């Protein structure tokens, strides 16, 4: 019998490269398949879509599992059905289901991939094969992400059908969830992989990843809160300056019209003095909030933008106008309710609540503030958000790959 060695330099070499990659894909599938969590997550995803099928909107309001909630602001008179379902998809299904619960389940599913892979006795079998360490590392990483993408695809496809069937809008943009959620997951998974490579422990890598995610969440929330209050402070300052300018103009006009009447401007002067007195405080507030906001932005710049990446779906998929209309309508309803309550209290003999100067407080729900926040958010372009996040991911993965390629197993 003669030795039949594989001629690795033959024209079939390219084919065998695919053979290796495909073998790794199939192996990863078998590994995930052996962990029932993969299928459990997939089934749960479909159940979530089915649950959303029982949320409908009509001209009177919304209906959840047959229970009707009449609300003009949340009716097809204000917001088109297709937009409503897209809002549900982008504001609830993606950030809460795919962005939190399914992500946790996916992390649990794949956190052991690298620690198991580099276990003594296992890694020897892979490294002793004719494929480079870097390729092995990259393939394992990408295949893990591929299965996350598969999960999101199934969810997006089910949502696409649901929205299409319920509203007649066959929105292909829903499939943007696949790259966006996979990207979001990859920001976390790269940390999981690095920790797994360093500690060789699935539990440690899961814990570190969750802590990192929590840190990002806290950072993003702080950034969002600061952005809102900074915008509110800016709006308040601008309105206040406008007030001072208007008062000054009135006083000047009055003085021109009746120069000999000092009492004509008494009220305006009092208001102007009060406004001038308050101005430094408002300027200080705005400057302080700007400082903190800038600080957090600097901290955030090199870190992955988890929430903002997922929020790109809303930015790209949902037209802002119907939402603003809906919000204004809700605001109007709230004001009407407040007014009715006040009238009732007055009729009962109770004293009316103290009127506060609108420009004296920071109002995050002010439509002007909301518009400014939206402008500020849109100023952070997708390229910048994804680019800086991918920069972080590449740096972390580069370090993990470097350790993997240099380590003696």
């Amino acid at each position, binding site marked *: *019998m*003669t*030795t*039949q*060695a*594989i001629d*690795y*330099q033959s024209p*079939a*070499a390219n*084919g*065998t*490269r695919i*053979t*290796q990659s*495909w*073998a*790794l894909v*199939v*192996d990863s599938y*078998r*590994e995930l*398949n*052996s962990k029932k969590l993969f299928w459990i997550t997939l089934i749960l995803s479909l159940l979530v879509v089915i649950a959303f099928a029982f949320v409908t909107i009509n001209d009177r309001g919304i209906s959840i599992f047959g229970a009707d909630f009449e609300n003009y602001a949340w009716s097809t008179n204000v917001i088109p059905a297709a937009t409503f379902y897209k809002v549900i998809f982008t504001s609830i299904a993606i950030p809460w289901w795919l962005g939190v619960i399914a992500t946790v389940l996916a992390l649990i599913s794949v956190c052991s991939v690298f620690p198991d892979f580099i*276990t*003594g*006795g*296992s*890694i*020897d*079998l*892979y*490294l*002793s*094969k*004719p*494929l*480079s360490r870097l390729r092995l590392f990259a393939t394992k990483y990408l295949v893990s992400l591929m299965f996350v993408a598969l999960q999101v695809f199934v969810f997006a496809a089910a949502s696409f059908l649901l929205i299409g069937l319920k509203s007649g809008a066959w929105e292909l943009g829903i499939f943007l969830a696949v790259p966006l959620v996979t990207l979001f997951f990859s920001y976390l998974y790269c940390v999981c992989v690095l920790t797994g490579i360093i500690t060789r422990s699935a539990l440690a890598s899961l814990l570190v990843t969750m802590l990192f995610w929590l840190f990002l969440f806290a950072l993003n929330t702080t950034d969002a809160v600061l952005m809102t209050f900074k915008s509110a402070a800016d709006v308040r300052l601008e309105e206040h300056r406008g007030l001072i300018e208007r008062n000054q103009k009135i006083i000047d006009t009055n003085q021109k019209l009746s120069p000999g009447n000092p009492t004509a401007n008494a009220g305006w002067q009092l208001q102007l003095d009060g406004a001038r007195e308050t101005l430094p405080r408002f300027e200080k507030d705005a400057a302080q909030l700007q400082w903190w906001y800038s600080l957090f932005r600097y901290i955030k710049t090199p870190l992955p933008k988890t929430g903002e990446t997922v929020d790109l779906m809303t930015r790209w998929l949902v037209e802002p106008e119907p939402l603003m209309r809906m919000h204004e309508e809700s605001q109007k309803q709230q004001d009407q309710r407040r007014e009715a309550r006040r009238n009732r209290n007055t009729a009962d003999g109770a004293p009316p609540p103290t009127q506060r100067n609108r420009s004296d407080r920071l109002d995050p729900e002010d439509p002007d503030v909301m518009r400014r926040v939206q402008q500020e958010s849109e100023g952070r372009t997708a390229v910048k958000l994804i680019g800086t996040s991918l920069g972080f991911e590449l740096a972390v993965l580069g370090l993990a790959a470097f350790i993997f390629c*240099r380590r*003696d*197993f």
Partner: protein
Amino acid sequence: MAHELSIDLRDVRKTYGGKVTALRGIAMQVGRGEVFGLLGPNGAGKSTLVKIIMTVIRPSHAAGTVLGKPVGDKPTLARVGYLPEHHRFPRYLSGRQALDFFGALSKVPRIRRRLKADELIEVVGMKDAAHRKVGTYSKGMMQRIGLAAAMMNDPELILLDEPTDGVDPVGRRDIRDVLLRLKARGTTVFLNSHLLSELEMVCDRVAILLGGAVARQGTLNELALGRGFYELQVAASPPSGTLTEGESANAVYMESRLKQMFPHATVAGDIIRVGTIDPLAIQPVVDRLRSDGIAIKRMQLIKPTLEELFMEAVQEQATNGVQK
């Protein structure tokens, strides 16, 4: 000459973290088609050396070739089979799937993998368990499937790290048969084992690794050189007429006569020991005894076992140290 060697290591060194020296300049040659045994106590650097050859560990310095290519050349590994010590095949794969998967990683085309897996499952005696998950296998079954996986790419060189670890005597014999089969087809087998008797049975050449350096290397005969001998037992009383006048037939007297005849041999009673293992070298002694009419009752080649050679090397190292 270089192309005749499957492994030709000139200077392989490994130091972990700049502190712990595992290999101190290994020079080792393994010819094509040879069964080569690597032995040494725990911590001698055997597994480190095997892992360097298989690119699992990066050497601090490595001069030499494997199958004619520099040590560490990845594509060459398509022609090499490897069974690591304490290997852990994915538990979620069946035995057959494991063979297919690792065959694919060795770039074996799909159709060939299928045929090869069938053949090897038969060879290692795993036909009945091939569809069971590896996680349910006993240690012996794991070794058998591991051996089959190492052969999936029809390797020109196969490195086996403790292949009989945890295997029962029947399994050990089966594995030995597989090794002999590999040798018969011209595959170079590099064996790393603690079981010296196993190595002795199958190896053409061995190397003893002590403290990260090759203490001895060669065929068993070469290693036994100067340590083996022929032992002859002659008749206690030589036939009458062979002794000169005044010599008595008692054993003591015969001893002195034999010592005169063979000054380089040792004689104790009726036992003559000649310090050679070369059968040609012993012939003049036999001829002389026969011409003198001394009857040879028994003649036996006594060689030190591999275990004795190994222990001798270990003791020598303990006495001299390994500072080289």
